[in-house]
């Protein structure tokens, strides 16, 4: 946290090297979150690009109320959310109803059983975006419910409900697959 404040301070003083250090520090976290939320690597890379360029543009005037990491993760989550809404609208216009899932295999499948990882990814994709976002932010990005609630402008109770209902639904989806 202190290191981040120092980096932002250096950046505001015009040391562009600080920008690179911040990027190197958080790039993989941001990309992993964007992939987990969007289920699409190409979209995720574009999101990380746009978020970081936007951060660089406004960094000098930004007053960080949360940690730099939380700020950047929130930017990624919000941008993916905006994209998901646009995609949802497009899907509605095309009257398609199938769930958006990618056939792309992530390397996660090498760490878990490939089949299990695919099932989890498919199940996550079937959650509402709000539920998926809370679960991913909490379990992947280690964000506390209070921090998530603040960044989403909802009550902590709402965040906890989304988390609980989301996990319940995941369990049901994965259990029902097992029965089949």
């Amino acid at each position, binding site marked *: 946290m202190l290191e981040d404040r120092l980096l932002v301070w250096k950046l505001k003083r015009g040391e562009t090297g600080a920008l690179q250090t911040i990027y190197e520090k958080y790039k993989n976290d941001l990309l992993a979150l964007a992939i987990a939320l969007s289920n699409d690597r190409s979209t995720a890379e574009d999101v990380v690009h746009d978020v970081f360029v936007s951060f660089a543009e406004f960094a000098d005037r930004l007053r960080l109320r949360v940690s730099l990491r939380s700020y950047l993760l929130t930017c990624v989550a919000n941008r993916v959310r905006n994209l998901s809404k646009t995609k949802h609208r497009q899907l509605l216009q095309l009257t398609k109803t199938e769930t958006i899932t990618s056939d792309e295999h992530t390397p996660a499948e090498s760490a878990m059983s490939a089949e*299990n990882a695919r099932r989890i990814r498919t199940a996550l994709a079937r959650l509402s975006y709000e539920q998926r976002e809370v679960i991913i932010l909490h379990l992947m990005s280690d964000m506390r419910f209070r921090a998530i609630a603040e960044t989403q402008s909802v009550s902590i109770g709402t965040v906890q409900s989304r988390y609980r209902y989301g996990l319940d639904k995941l369990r049901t989806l994965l259990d029902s697959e*097992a029965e089949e």
Partner: protein
Amino acid sequence: MKIDNIEKLIKDFCAAVKTDVKTTIERDTQIINDATTAHEKSKKKQSAEPAPNIWRIIVKHRITKFAVAAGIIIAVLVGINQFDGSIDLVKQAYGITDVPELFQAARTIHMKGRMYFPVSEPGKEQSSVEVEYWLDTQNGRWRLTYPGYSGDNEGIKIHVSENISDGQYEMHVNHTNKTVSFSKLSPFQKKLFTHKNRYTFFQLMYINFDLFDYIKVGREVIEGATFDIWEGFGKDSLRSGMKVKTWLSPTTGDFARIRTWGLREDGGMNKQMKIDLVQRDIEIPDEIFLTEAPAAYVLENTKDTATERELSNGSVGNDSVSLNCHIVFTMPDGSVIMGYSSEDRQSDQPQTMLFEDLKIGGPLPQLAAEVYAIKRIPTDEDITYRGYHLAYTQKAGKFYEWSIYIPEQKTAPEAVLGYQLVHRYNPQGREINAELSIAVAAELKIQDAQDFAVFVRGAMADLSDNGYVPEHVTYENVLDLTGKIKSSITQ
């Protein structure tokens, strides 16, 4: 897949994704280059950019230049027409009662003036600050520059703020603290806030025939044009001593001036508003609605982190319970529809059970804070509106109750400013440390089925997953329901 611990399973999956995901060198280079360029550009812009001046923008804008030129041409043509010997006997005559319709139909509205701050003693100079409102009703854009004030022993401190909507984001600028924050607007919020902002114009001008009595007191020629002078006086005790004076053109329905006053404690009058520019249907330059933070202002968040605000007309809460009144509508028959939510902060039980087996027109769900009745403001008459369940919606796991409140006695046709919510805690008899008190405004009056579809069903869709609204919630069904309940109360 056998699930013993779903939380651990997902956490392991996330950890695996995190471990394996790596950016590529090509992307890294591109991002660093683009970010560095953006940062350098931003630095140059900040050092070179003076503070924005709205008037300079307007005067420099090509549309305004054209409008100014066109105005001169029109003036010349009107002049010629006046001297050609013809007499137009069928001139449109606008009175003060035509104003709401003219402004309801306006595509754009612009108003500029000064707001005065009250003083307690006669002879003391009233300080004032400029207010300016721009509204583009068709595209859901607005720019409202307005003051607020706080007073203590050292005197009155004035704060100036601006709310600017570009139709997608709303930017809130605090000119006192020099801070900026953004929120996203849902399509419904765009409609709702446009409606509310239009209503604000009427409030500022005291154009409300339920609250003010108007009389025509004279006529005055200002810069060659004739204006009728109308004076309005507050009808009820709350507005006793409030006065408005307007100069309204009987031929165009345009205002030349508006002045308002309020009553001082010693019986004297304080100036409240002095408006010298009111325009309808003008072309407003797009720059007025730009949501770019002024240079050197601190950003509380950015558009990237801006979220949609949950609709709210007021909320309260403590460690035990929260109560949020999301929106209130007054129906033409005087009944009131309210959407609200309440959470028990000491329980993690889902609210699903509370919303099972509810009947339309039946008892309300027993939420942690149950708004079983409302009382209207001003509370001259002690009239209670009893609550009945109408519908519920659900968004991302959160429940929203939509109740209808029906007066237990016949109500007088006086204007309603708002409603005081009357609630009880569930389970009943539960001890809560603090009393929650909430009063909500009543500016959303439903006139017909179209209003109902846009605002009531729109609000329900806004607080619902995928915009779902229960089919039975229609204008006709609700009036039918309130009619039946009123009959049963009478019997």
